[in-house]
């Protein structure tokens, strides 16, 4: 590592001890950062220094650090996950920054996502939406034959594109209305497209959009910020599908 040039960065980080603490920004210096560090590794370096100084490290959510689990959740310089297309913040690398940069780091901000500590928010609002209808009911029994239910390739691909959602909540974090409509639309569209999900499509779309409202998320007003911020590139066409499914449900 010694042959790599290192960067020194100024971090302005949201610190909040708990849900009831008002919270405030603190400024830190990140030293010895190389372009190969991921954003979270850069925070690890800062946290080691903080621990050595006897201070509280910055708390943040993370798990796989491979961009597939949806745990990491930071708004970097005003954009969820830092604004690199189809990239979670754990896969954002420091080569996208330059020496001397100042970086603002904030938690997801929405009423439905209360801050637990520093950059960690409680995303159980998304679980409420899934629990309301993001599943297919089935009777357990013998395992169905693999080819008993034929699904055309285009439909399987469409459903898979919707199922790419990792549930990180960047759609909510980026939405000026804090709406979770992209998250909800992706699940409604995925299941409505497949024969297993069609049976409950009408009940599902109503139950899930009602749960969205009851969990304190805002309403969708078609800003499309969610699509731009989504690290998996989920298209707002799935929200249009949700809207169509809702109209079908009205006629039932």
């Amino acid at each position, binding site marked *: 590592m010694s042959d790599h040039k290192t960067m020194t960065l100024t971090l302005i980080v949201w610190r909040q001890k708990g849900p009831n603490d008002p919270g405030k*920004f603190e400024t830190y210096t990140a030293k010895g950062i190389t372009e190969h560090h991921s954003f979270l590794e850069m925070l690890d370096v800062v946290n080691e220094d903080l621990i050595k100084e006897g201070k509280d490290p910055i708390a943040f959510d993370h798990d796989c650090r491979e961009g597939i689990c949806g745990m990491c959740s930071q*708004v970097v*310089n*005003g*954009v969820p996950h830092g*604004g690199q297309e189809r990239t979670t913040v754990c896969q954002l690398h420091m080569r996208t920054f330059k020496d001397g940069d100042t970086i*603002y780091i*904030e938690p997801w*901000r*929405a*009423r*439905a996502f209360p801050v637990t500590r520093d950059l960690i928010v409680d995303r159980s609002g998304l679980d409420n939406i899934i629990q309301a209808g993001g599943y297919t009911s089935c009777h357990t029994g013998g395992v169905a034959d693999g080819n008993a239910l034929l699904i055309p390739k285009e439909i399987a691909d469409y459903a898979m594109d919707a199922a790419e959602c990792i549930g990180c909540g960047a759609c909510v974090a*980026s939405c*000026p*209305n*804090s*709406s979770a*409509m992209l998250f909800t639309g992706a699940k409604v569209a995925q299941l409505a497209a497949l024969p297993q999900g069609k049976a409950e499509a009408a009940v599902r*779309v*109503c139950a899930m*959009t*009602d749960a*969205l*409202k009851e969990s*304190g*998320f*805002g*309403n*969708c*007003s*078609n*800003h*499309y*910020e969610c*699509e*731009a*911020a989504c690290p998996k590139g989920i*298209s*707002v*066409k799935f*929200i*249009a*599908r*949700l*809207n*169509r499914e*809702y*109209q079908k449900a*009205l006629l039932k």
Partner: protein
Amino acid sequence: MQITNSAVGRKLLMAITGQLMVLFVIVHMLGNSSIFLGANGINAYAKHLHDLPPLVWAFRFSMLAFILVHAWFGIQVSVENSAATPKKYSVQKHLRATLSSKSMIWTGVIIALFVIYHLLHFTVHAIPGVVTGVDAIGRFDVYTMVVNAFQSGLVPVIYIAAMIAVFLHLSHGVGSFFQTLGWNNANTLPKISNTSRGFSFVLLLGYIAIPVVILAGILK
């Protein structure tokens, strides 16, 4: 949940009432443009309209209903949306949201206030200074009323500003209608959004042409 409480149901009701009002905005612009045919054009057009009172009143009541539904849910969802976002980011960069999409509630309020002013001005004739008379063959003289109002002062400025608010509102609103009804896909969405902006711009030009041409002294 009832359609009137649902996150999607209210959006549908707003989209449909909004779009019905857009149809009116198109017809109204075409009707107004009869002023370019001179006094005979617009006075005859106004007379034809007012010779059909049941139709005029049915139309007025429908428009009032659309406005009330659209405004009621617009205010309601805006209040909910700002409550859903109690703390703003200290640094925020929008990637796709536009001035037009972010200012819907405010351009909506401006348009509502303008509609009241416009009705008081050219329908009720309650704004001081409005010229009400009849033309040579006894028809209500819309032409003189409009030309006189737009020749100078604050009135043309109010009308042009209001039309800019309409332009911003419809730039987002017309394209949004197709998304809300689900009449699009990933391919057509950007085309619909651009067409929506272009269409709104054409309406803006059509509407402001009248005060601009009068201010320029071309219509007297």
